[in-house]
Every structure is written in C-alpha cells, then in structure tokens.
C-alpha cells in the first residue's frame, strides 16, 4: 500500500478557511460549527476516554467528560478524518489510531486523515502521556467507526434494495457479498448529505480474526514528511512579522533578576528589547541576531539560596519527606520478619535525569485583539490553552493551540514554560513571537526526573520463598512500586508526591516531572535489584528465584518467553561478562528483559552487548510500531543506566549540552531482540514506556553478574563502578 497522504494537525482545507488571513476568526468557531462548515459527511459523536480516574495522578475533572465529546467524520469524498486531542511526538500513535479506524471502517489506510492536538477542532484531552492513547482513546474510537460503518450499510441497503445482512464492506465501499461488483462507495452514499450520529450503545466491533489492517506490521504514515524535511515542527512555523526571542536567563535556579542594562543591545539594528516584569528579551526577525543582542545585555542577579548538590540531595530528600501514601499493605511486617530466616536491607538512589528531547521546547504565539493563536511543541495542548488564557487574561475558547509534529517529549513537554514566555512577549511586542529554547535553556528549565531514595527490606524463609517485603521510597512516586511477586507480608510506602515533588515543602532545587515511565524506572531499579540480592541470599539463580516467587501466570509466561529467547544460563562466578534479568507490570503491560554486558574493571566501563525484551501488551495494533517503541525504550534506557545525570550545586545546573550530558549514541547499540508475546484476548495496553522501566535493574543485575559488585545508584557511571569495585560492595 502506498503511504497515506497524511495531513496531520492542520488540514489543507482548514488552512484555506482559517489560514493566515482569516486566522482570528477561526478561534471564535466552536468545533461543531467547524464541522457544519466543513460540508457534507457522516459524523459520529462519541465519548472518548478513561472517565475521571487515571490521568495525571487521578485529578478529578482532568479526564474526558462523559458527554459525546469526540467525533470522526466520513467525508463526502470518502476520506475519513480522525480528530483527537492526542499529539504525535514520535511514539507512532498517528499510525496506530489511523489503523484502528481503517480496520473498523473498511477503508484503505491512505484515506485516513489525522487531525491531532488542535484545541479548536479536537476533543478535550488531558495530554499525551502514560502510554494511554491507544489504550483509552482507541477503543471508543473503534466503536464509533463500527457505528459509522453500520450506518453506511443501512444506507446502502436502502440504495441497493438489499437486506443489510447480504452486504459487506471493503475499501471504502459497501458491496453485495455474493456479487462484489454490485457496490456503492461511501462517498456516493454520503453525497452532499449531512448525517450526524450520536453513539449511545456500544456496537459490536470486528473480531480480531477478521482484521486485515490492525495487527499487521505497518510502516508509519508520517514517514514521507519526516524523510524529506517537510514535516513541520513548532520552530518551523513562519508568520508574517514574526520575531524570534532571546531571553535573559539567571545563572542559577532561585536567582532573582536585579537589573538588566540593555543599552548596548538596543543599538543592534532591528532589535527590539521587551520587558515584562522579570522577563527581559531581545527580539529580532533573525533568531541568531536576537541571540547576539542578548549577549550584549548586562544582567545582574541576586544569588540563589539553594545549598543543595548531587551529594547532599539524598539526605535532604529524606529529611523533607513525610506522611507517606500507603501504596499496598497486606499481612503484617512483624509476622513476615518472624517467618524469615534471612532478612536483607539495602538503600538505593537515583540522580536527576533530563528528558533532552531532540527538539527543544518551542512555541509561536500570535495575539490579535482578544484572540490568541499558539503553535507549540507540547504534550498537553489543552493544558497549554488554559495556561495561555490565564497568562493573557482571555477566556480559554479565545485561545487556539495547534500542535505540529513534536520532536520527542518523554514527559518533558507536559510543562510548557516556553509557551507562556512566547505569549507574554507576543502581547508585549504586539507581534507574533517565536520562543525556541537553546539546548542550554532546555537543560536548565527541563522538569527533570526527580532524584529519589529507596529503602528496601526483604525476608526469605528456609525454602527460598519471599515472606517479607518492606519498601519505602522518597520522592520517586508510587508507579510500579508494588512488587509483582507473591509475598504474604508486604507494605509499600511512597513518601512525597512523585513526579512533581511534594506538596508545600520545597523538595527539589529545580523543576521535576514525569520522565518516560515515571516513577517506574527507578522503583523497578530498586525492586528488581533487591530481588536479585534476595535470590543470591537464597542461593538461587535470579531467573529461577523469580519464577519460584511468582503466582501470576501471565508474568511467569513473559519471564519464560524472555529466558527462552535469551537462551543462556547465569554464570557460577564473575567473569567480567554477565547476564541480568528484570520484569515488571507497567500499567497492564508485562515486560521481561534479559541483558548481556561486558565490564572493563580497570575503567569501570560497561558495554551492553545484547538485550532481549519480551512484552505482552494485550492486542497489538501495530506490531511494527510496538517493536519500534520497545527498541527505542531499550536504546534510550541505556542512558539513564550508565551515564545520564544532571550535575548541579547551589541552584546551578552544570550540564548545559550534549558534551557533558551523555546520551546513547550509535556506538552504544547492543544487539536488540524483541519478542511480542501474543495475548489478543486482552484489550490493547500501552507500549510507549513499559520496556524502558526495567532497564536500570536489568543492567545493574548484569553488572553484578559480571563483576560481583552491586550498584546502588543510578546512573552506574565508570567512576561509581570503580568505586564499588574498590569498596567491594556486594
């Protein structure tokens, strides 16, 4: 099949209607008015989403409303439009959602248009995170598509004078099952008519056995634009009169601006200096000249009052963390301790990690009268709409946020500081303004994965069964903090609110937030490292110990699938070459990963040679897309295992670019093997994050297998490995 002519976000016809000339009028339009203007077609309204639970830590009101808020449209030309508040940042939802629609409606994939992340056109959505797009938006959309198909069949039945059950659908047409040449296309059925359907009941959807698109490996529909440079990101938006901003920045977090002498910068031809409170910027129609002018601004700042650094942060975190949430409590810890013949107690630590998306945070804002238009690299366009409305003192419906392609997010683009800056500057300047953070700004204003501490105590009985699990984490968050093992006496406590830091107490010296598999990466590092230590105390092989302590048959199956593919057994003694295993249940997706590493003991350097990942995410919509996500998780995950950490002191962030902040490069690439474990009876689960969450643990465990020392802190840098070898930590 030819790649789809995909028109993400901003459709050509919509451009014609609302493009640069008539843009201000566009924001006044209600979504449904837009649909009326959009001409004939069959529109199915449906309620999409996961109700009020779940999103963003379960804040009520952040989920989808219950009324039919979403829709898809079969146009008079037979093209099908999917309108979704989700955005595309590389995770491939643009393709998987289109596949689900194409499948259920029996139209070629090339006839699906995706409109994503446009607050004027798309249904409300809390944001694209948590591996939730397919899991929660997909199924109701699929039902809406089934309903649309049902309506078209009814129409064809009347048109052809044939009972509905004698009809079938294929390639965007309804045909007579026993005489396929007798057919009528969806486009012909709709003609110029306007048909609106509200999805009330849940129509039956196709059984998986009948699928011809969904479940088949499919190339990305945004491929052509991305290999030709045509794909537009927020920084590629050009508006008439637009100025680029270069903003005065403090040397440290917590350092307040005292004064800014802009006299020299003002002399640069074409430069405009804008001040809006503490926001001081040089604007110019060329971004590099704005930056040159910025360099001429002499700004003075108060010193930061932060006294924290990489060494003192952990004691601070424990000191300020109070009032834990009880994530799970079963049995009785004292009882478990009595049953235990051995107890093992250890602490684990994780440093701050940056998202470092390829595209830094970028936004373009145009304010005209009482309307604002925003183009932003964001994972949360509707949240941005609210923020910009507050910033500019406008009602939210007067703010339209469009989301072009996003160049990676990983949780970091839930926060939209750059959008607010662009809005303030655009308002102050009376011109459209683009704010594109430099890499240094990106490393300074990122919402880092929080540093955290984990205290773990486990107990074993004489038979090698885990009978006690006492787990406390400080500021990591609760996700994936529950052990997947069958343990009679266990308690898991989470101190502090997790991704964003805790309540009224200032925990972190800078912004923190969700980082791909938030909470889970480091909770699983602590948990699955500790399981290995416990296995060693039991005198058992790490894999056999896990299988013996699991009750969950699905988890056993996935662990065995990884082990079968890996095909190696653990060494009896350290040889410099080692294997590791780690497993998890990430929000319903099961992952088991095994890895092979080589450790150079002199340098402390780890080379990951091979990673096998088995994953069960229920029904798989796009096996190719799922593999891409798993491979990406493994490759990206090597960074937080081995090198990535933010070095900081007294509010300063020392890592400012990719020279010192080391992300995985081509030479790091291990052999990757992915096993998709078939489980079509389970509804589709998320795939964007699960496989990255086990990486810390699997590499730590493999390092231990290789050199006999245990790493208790992420990342496991050469210096830390050399130190551990010196100390002989086991």
């Amino acid at each position: 099949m030819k790649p789809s002519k995909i028109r993400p976000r901003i459709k050509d016809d919509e451009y014609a209607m609302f493009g640069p000339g008539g843009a201000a009028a566009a924001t006044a339009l209600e979504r449904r008015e837009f649909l009326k203007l959009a001409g004939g077609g069959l529109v199915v309204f449906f309620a999409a989403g996961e109700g009020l639970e779940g999103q963003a830590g379960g804040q009520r009101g952040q989920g989808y409303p219950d009324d039919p808020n979403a829709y898809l449209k079969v146009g008079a030309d037979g093209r099908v439009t999917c309108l979704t508040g989700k955005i595309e940042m590389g995770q491939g939802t643009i393709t998987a959602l289109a596949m689900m629609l194409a499948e259920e409606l029996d139209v070629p994939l090339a006839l699906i248009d995706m409109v994503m992340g446009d607050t004027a056109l798309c249904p409300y959505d809390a944001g694209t995170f948590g591996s939730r797009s397919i899991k929660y938006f997909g199924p109701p959309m699929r039902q809406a598509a089934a309903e649309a198909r049902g309506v078209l069949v009814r129409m064809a039945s009347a048109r052809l004078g044939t009972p509905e059950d004698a009809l079938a659908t294929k390639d965007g047409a309804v045909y007579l099952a026993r005489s396929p040449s007798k057919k009528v296309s969806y486009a012909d059925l709709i003609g110029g008519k306007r048909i609106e359907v509200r999805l009330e009941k849940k129509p039956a959807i196709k059984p998986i056995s009948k699928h011809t698109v969904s479940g088949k490996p499919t190339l990305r529909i945004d491929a052509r634009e991305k290999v030709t440079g045509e794909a537009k990101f927020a920084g590629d938006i050009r508006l008439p009169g637009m100025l680029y901003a270069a903003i005065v920045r403090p040397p440290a977090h917590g350092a307040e601006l005292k004064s800014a002498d802009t006299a020299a910068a003002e002399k640069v031809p074409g430069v405009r200096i804008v001040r809006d409170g503490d926001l001081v910027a040089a604007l110019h129609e060329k971004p590099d000249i704005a930056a040159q002018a910025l360099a001429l601004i002499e700004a003075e700042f108060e010193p930061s009052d932060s006294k924290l650094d990489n060494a003192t942060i952990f004691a601070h975190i424990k000191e300020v963390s109070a009032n834990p949430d009880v994530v799970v409590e079963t049995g009785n810890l004292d009882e478990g301790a009595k049953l235990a013949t051995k107890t093992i107690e250890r602490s684990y630590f994780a440093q701050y990690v940056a998202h470092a998306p390829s595209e830094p945070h970028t936004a373009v804002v145009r304010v005209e009268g009482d309307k604002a238009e925003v183009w932003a690299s964001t994972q949360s366009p509707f949240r941005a709409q609210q923020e910009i409305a507050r910033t500019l003192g406008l009602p939210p419906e007067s703010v339209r946020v469009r989301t072009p392609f996003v160049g990676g997010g990983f949780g970091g683009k839930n926060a939209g500081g750059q959008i607010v800056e662009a809005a303030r500057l655009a308002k102050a300047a009376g011109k459209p303004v683009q704010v594109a953070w430099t890499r240094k700004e990106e490393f300074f204003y990122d919402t880092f994965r929080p540093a955290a501490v984990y205290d773990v105590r486990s107990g074993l009985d004489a038979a090698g069964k885990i009978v006690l699990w006492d787990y406390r984490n400080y500021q990591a968050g609760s996700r994936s903090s529950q052990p997947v093992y069958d343990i009679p006496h266990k308690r898991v406590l989470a101190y502090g609110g997790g991704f964003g830091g805790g309540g009224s107490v200032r925990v972190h010296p800078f912004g923190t937030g969700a980082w791909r598999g938030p909470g889970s990466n480091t909770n699983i590092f602590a948990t699955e490292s500790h399981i290995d230590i416990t296995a060693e105390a039991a005198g058992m092989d790490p894999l056999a110990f896990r299988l013996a302590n699991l009750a969950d048959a699905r988890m056993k199956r996935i662990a065995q699938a990884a082990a079968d593919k890996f095909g190696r057994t653990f060494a009896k003694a350290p040889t410099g070459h080692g294997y590791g295993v780690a497993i998890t249940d990430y929000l319903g997706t099961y992952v088991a990963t095994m890895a092979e590493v080589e450790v150079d003991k002199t340098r402390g350097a780890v080379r990951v040679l091979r990673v096998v990942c088995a994953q069960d995410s229920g029904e798989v919509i796009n096996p190719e897309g799922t593999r891409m996500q798993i491979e990406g998780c493994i490759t990206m995950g090597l960074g937080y295992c081995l090198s990535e950490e933010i070095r900081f002191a007294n509010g300063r962030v020392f890592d400012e670019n990719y020279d010192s902040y080391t992300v995985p490069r081509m030479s790091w690439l291990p052999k990757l093997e992915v096993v998709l474990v078939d489980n079509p009876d389970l509804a589709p689960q998320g795939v964007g994050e699960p496989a990255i969450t086990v990486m810390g643990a699997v590499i730590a465990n493999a390092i231990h297998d290789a050199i006999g020392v245990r790493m208790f802190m992420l990342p496991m840098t050469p210096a830390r490995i050399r130190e551990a070898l010196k100390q002989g930590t086991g």
Partner: protein
Amino acid sequence: MERTVRFKLNGKEVAVETAPERMLLWVLRADLAHTGTKYGCGEGYCGFCTVLVDGRPERSCQFPLAKAEGKSVMTIEGLAKGGRLHPLQQAFVDHGAFQCGYCTPGMILVAYALLLRKPDPTEAEIADALEGNICRCGTYARVIAAVRQGSRAMTTKAADKVADHEAL
C-alpha cells in the same frame, strides 16, 4: 557588515544579502525558509543541523555563511527529485528508521555523504560515520539497516548515482 553572498542551494543559485559571519543554519532556516535543517545544540554535538557543502557533511550551526560562498550546499530538501524519494530516503521509510523525525534530516545527509564516498560500507563503518548524530528516540538499529538498504539501492541504480553527483 552586510553583503551579498552567493552559493548553490540544492542545485539552484541563491544570493543572500546579510552578514557573512552568520551561521549557515540560521540563514537556511530564517532567510531561505529551508526549515528541514534543524537546530539541536548549537555547538556541533548532535548532528541535527548537518548539511552537505560540496558533498562533505558540515554542522551548519558552526559553519559561517562566508565559507559557503561559491560552493554547493545540499539540505534534506534537495534529496528527493521530482517528488520521488531518493532510495536512501525510501530505505529510512521502509525500515521505520525514525520516530519523532527531528534528527532525521541530519542523519540521512550524513549517511548519504558516506555512501557517496563509500558505496558499500560495513555496519561498523555506518555506525562510525553516524556517531556524531544523536537520536534520542533510539532508532539507531533501524538507521543502520536503512543505510545498508540505501547502499544496495544506490550501488545498483546507476542512474540515481549519476543524479546524486549532479546534485552536488
């Protein structure tokens, strides 16, 4: 001091009236509306802004416009011909060798320069050539597979090869 700087951009003569010490990246993006070339780090570490100057990969964020004077600059926009993807681009499509796509223009151009110089590189040579190009989404394995396919396609299609050289 502003002056007119002339060079060939994707086979066409262009003249830019600007300060010649400005970096090529910003001239391409802001003055010439060639936004396929991406900013990534501003210091040459990431490779997103790579363009070819007389067939050699250069970091356009570190490459003053003056150095491009009289030379042939190729950006990602110059690779497809007449709406038809270059075999290397097609290989990136076929292997799904990208996710967010932000690093892709630089990745493809470095690979393209490698294949012009060395039509049948080993995996190690591909990895070595692309070591300076970060992909945060972690698609390196697919990029290597794509470059190998692109290599086979380029070496078997003589016509394309000629066209490739003409573009420079």
